[in-house]
């Protein structure tokens, strides 16, 4: 891929694009919002949802975590009453690339097939809101897809931050290193101090989602449960629903402040090598229009 081809792919998405969402759905409460947002956007004809891929999460048994994440996607689809997307829901790789060589999984197979589908116009946007295992594996097994996808990854921290330490980026460091060295067109949405500020509160969520429908009830419930588990009585608490930003980027790129930068070298600290390929990085998100679009899409009956 030439630099100009890469930069062209990194132009903000326009029109109705195709996406795959790669998610560690059960590990927090924001993935579920993102899944619901993506499905409703697809049903509204604003994007084409080509896959919901479960990725593993860290823990003693990553295969068991993968299964939980897969089941959680199905649970969200149940609450959405959108069972047709179950056929597009796939299990990803059960082991990290730090622990096992690249191996095919249902999600990887779907990613390769969809990416290689010549009927599609424009790139496939892979919106990754978990670790990088499935995506890196797919590129290792089918390197040609690098030229056919744009990776939108919620991972790491801003380049001026004190470290790259963040859950998704460090979930599978071999995958992260591969992705950052692969040259795949990548839009990086850093946690600090960007996505972490996609905050809402119980009070705002209740205002917009209470007594609306099944999926809103479910989303409110998981936030309440999360709050009950972590709260300290009387403490002001806001919740980051960061993962919706990945979906919002392909729907409303105008709500994102982004720029091209030289792809940094992945490590505990971002390393700099000015001769590397360009990528796009996000500096800020206009949270109000993004949350408004989310609330309006998921609260409709």
């Amino acid at each position, binding site marked *: 891929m030439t630099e100009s081809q890469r930069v062209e792919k990194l132009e903000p998405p326009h029109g109705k694009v195709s996406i795959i969402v790669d998610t560690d759905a059960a590990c927090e409460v924001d993935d579920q919002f993102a899944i619901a947002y993506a499905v409703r956007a697809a049903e509204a004809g604003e994007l084409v949802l080509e896959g919901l891929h479960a990725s593993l999460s860290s823990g003693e048994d990553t295969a068991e975590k993968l299964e939980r994440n897969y089941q959680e996607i199905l649970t969200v689809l149940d609450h959405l009453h959108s069972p047709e997307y179950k056929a597009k829901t796939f299990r990803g790789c059960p082991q990290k690339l730090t622990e096992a060589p690249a191996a095919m999984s249902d999600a990887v197979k779907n990613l390769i097939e969809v990416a290689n589908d010549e009927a599609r116009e424009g790139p496939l946007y892979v919106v990754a809101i978990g670790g990088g295992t499935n995506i890196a594996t797919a590129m290792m097994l089918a390197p040609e897809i690098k030229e056919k996808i744009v990776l939108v990854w919620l991972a790491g921290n*801003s380049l001026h931050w004190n470290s790259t330490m963040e859950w998704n980026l460090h979930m599978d460091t071999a995958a992260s290193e591969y992705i950052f060295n692969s040259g795949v067109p990548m839009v990086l949405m850093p946690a600090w101090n960007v996505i972490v500020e996609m905050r809402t509160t119980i009070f705002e969520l209740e205002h917009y989602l209470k007594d609306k429908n099944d999926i809103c009830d479910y989303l409110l419930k998981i936030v309440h449960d999360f709050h009950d588990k972590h709260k300290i009585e009387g403490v*002001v608490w*806001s919740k980051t629903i960061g993962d919706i930003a990945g979906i919002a980027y392909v729907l409303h790129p105008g709500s994102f402040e982004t720029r091209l930068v030289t792809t940094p070298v992945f490590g505990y600290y971002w390393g700099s090598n000015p001769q590397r390929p360009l990528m796009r990085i996000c500096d800020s998100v206009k949270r*109000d229009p993004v949350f408004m679009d989310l609330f309006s899409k998921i609260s409709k009956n």
Partner: protein
Amino acid sequence: MTESKRVEMLELPRGPVSVIIDTDPHLETDDHYALAYAICAAELGEMKIEGLHADFSGKEVEEGMLKNYDCVINIIDLLNVPKYKEITFHGPTRKFDKENPEVTDAVKNMIRVANNHTSEDPVYVLGIGGGTTIASALAAAPEIAEKMVIVWLGGNSMHWHSSMECNFWRDSSATEFIFDCGVPLVMIPAWNVTIQLKTSSYELDHYMKNRVPEKDAICEFLLNRFNRGFDPTKVAKGSGTIYDIGGIGYVLHPEWYVTRLMVTPVFQYHWASNPQRHMMRICDHINRDALYMDVFNKLTK
């Protein structure tokens, strides 16, 4: 001033410290919250306020300044703490002129107060408006640079596409002077830092509903100000940013702020770099929940 003395003065404040607040509430909502928060903190002995200075805003300098002054008096009345009127002072009637700085009541007070302090025990000037009074005081009495620390909310982070922000650009020659003169400066940028001090009507209503009777008047005023904005006929509930509380919280709880020392940039439309300049402190992030909790506690108890 030696670099070591400047860096020493830029160490995190160890309270309770003395402060002067320079503010432009008339066309804003957030200054009102910040003033009320600061006065409540002072009443609890967490800081000592030695001046409340009215900056200008809007097109007419003197008229805007007088309106800002009235807003400060209003907050003092709502909190029923008349003694603060004695330290409320009028600021500029014209923009900054380095050769002929205007010696307003606010400038006189800043010089007087600073001269009662030392580099070991500096007065913190909390700038939540433009730089006219601060620059005028420093131009009229350069020796005070060693007796005060400026904590200024304004501009944007160094990686931002411009420094364009209203506090820094309202009187840009004042800003240029402050960035050049070597006074210890803690910069708290708007994008992408204080812009994240987001709340919503729903959260404010929740936390400010239950309050002691003495705080009824101030809480009602502040809630109305947030919900109605500038137009009392319109109720526009929703999300908003209360930037200016970020300037007060720094001297009360610097542990809530992610900051670092850096070489002071050259102030212009695009930040410029000269590696031989003096050091300043810049803020990268504020713990929003902790700060809001302190604000709610102080405004309601």
